[in-house]
């Protein structure tokens, strides 16, 4: 390890950071705002996804089995249904069980003693892992031998999928915008430092420094600005989570907020990484534009 080299390099980076201190602070602040918004947004999106997943667990595909089927093939049928892609769970509900369930459900409302015969078929109740898979699963099950008909809450599934799809598109747009904003801010800052150091750069080129070597301190500068901004944002988010979420959770009881700290740690790391990456790429590009001969 050549400490003299390390010291020189750090000195150059530090010179970059301090030369435009006010500008750097603006950049860090703006990146912090962009990333805090991004973080808040991702957090909300995740919460919404958790909520919708939970709601969707109630959506089931019911496969009504034909009375004329080969009863001995039932275990094979259940296994084949369970093996279909996207299927989370299959339950077999026999005619008799179905009638008993119905009686329990209607007790007190209807005189169930009127049900003397059992009009119900045997049923497979199928749960999907994701709501998006439900229609495909329903089609596949319907094609299986011994299945007379298939039912599910098609309208609800469609509506939920529309909402989720729209949320995803909007979310993607918001993320792209925020990343672009952070990117723009950092590359403007770097362009200013590059400009203020153009004499150094010209001399570096004159004495035979490679372009990569010239770039390095600026990239380090971008990474520092990006990750400092992200760190500020993450601090804000963690504080907000710690202080605000418990209060919110008490107010809005129907949403299962993830309140424990571990939920936000991967998100925080992702945001830090995003800040550093955006900083590095932004500086790479803005210095590169200057170095091209």
């Amino acid at each position, binding site marked *: 390890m050549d400490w*003299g080299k390390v010291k020189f390099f750090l000195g150059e980076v530090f010179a970059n950071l301090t030369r435009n201190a006010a500008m750097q602070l603006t950049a860090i602040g703006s990146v912090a705002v962009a990333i805090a918004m991004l973080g808040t947004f991702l957090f909300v999106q995740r919460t919404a996804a958790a909520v919708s997943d939970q709601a969707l667990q109630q959506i089931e595909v019911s496969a009504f089995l034909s009375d004329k089927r080969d009863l001995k093939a039932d275990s094979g049928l259940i296994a084949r249904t369970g093996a279909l892609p996207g299927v989370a769970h299959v339950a077999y509900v026999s005619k008799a069980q179905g009638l008993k369930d119905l009686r329990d459900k209607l007790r007190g409302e209807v005189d169930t003693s009127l049900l003397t015969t059992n009009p119900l078929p045997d049923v497979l109740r199928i749960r999907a892992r994701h709501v998006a898979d439900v229609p495909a699963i329903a089609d596949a099950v319907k094609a299986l031998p011994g299945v007379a008909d298939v039912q599910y809450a098609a309208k609800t599934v469609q509506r939920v999928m529309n909402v989720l799809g729209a949320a995803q598109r909007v979310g993607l747009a918001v993320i792209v915008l925020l990343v672009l904003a952070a990117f723009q801010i950092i590359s403007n800052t770097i362009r200013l430092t590059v400009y203020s150091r153009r004499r150094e750069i010209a001399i570096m080129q004159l004495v035979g420094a490679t372009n990569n070597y010239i770039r390095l301190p600026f990239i380090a500068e971008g990474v520092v600005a990006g990750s400092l901004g992200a760190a500020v944002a993450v601090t804000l988010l963690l504080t907000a989570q710690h202080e605000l979420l418990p209060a919110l959770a008490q107010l809005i009881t129907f949403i299962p907020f993830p309140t424990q700290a571990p939920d936000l740690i991967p998100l925080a790391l992702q945001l830090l990484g995003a800040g550093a990456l955006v900083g590095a790429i932004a500086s790479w590009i803005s210095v590169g534009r200057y170095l091209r001969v």
Partner: protein
Amino acid sequence: MIELRNVSLLYPNGVRALDAVDLKIEKGEFVFLVGHSGTGKSSLLRLLYREQVPTTGDVYVDGIAVHRMRAGAIPRLRRNVGVVFQDFKLLGGKTIWENVAFALQVTGARTKDVMRQVPRCLDLVGLAQKSRMFPSELSGGEQQRAAIARALVNNPKILLCDEPTGNLDPSNTTEIMELLQRINTKGTTVVVATHNQAVVDRMRKRVVRLENGRIVGDEERGFYFLGLGQGQVLSG
């Protein structure tokens, strides 16, 4: 060491700075480039450190075909060619020591080599005592000596000087020229573009004369004006 074959340089604005130039400079030579302002002296030097690419013709520096060199190979060429300018081009925020060391450090040199080469070059130009000062605390001559030390720190085979004494008084000029002569004696090829008649006439080196981008004269032990010493011009 340096060879130009039928070199022309046309700037994008349409100015023909060099026109069918042929020039050969051997290893260890000391050459003056003279001519009126705007005749292409600086442009010729710029071809040699690949700041400009010739429009047509071939440029060879130390065996490298500079005219068809990849951009990625430029740093290696520049480490073999030291360049000194009229305005010194020192970094005001760095001490003399740091300025000279900078040229080595940005090439990724090992600290061990920096610690050896920088004092050697500062000694050579006689600035060892002032290495901790900033450029603004030095005289013009001293600043130019610092710039020469920086140009030499990579041990280049060629030293190019574009009006190195343009900003200096006569005594500083003499000092700098003596320094360049000493560097040349140690084996470095030196090319100096200058307007300084006294210097050229006193040193009596090879003189390459440019006019409107063409070479119109090339004499061993020449004078600033064609075939004439300073005194003769004044009396004639």
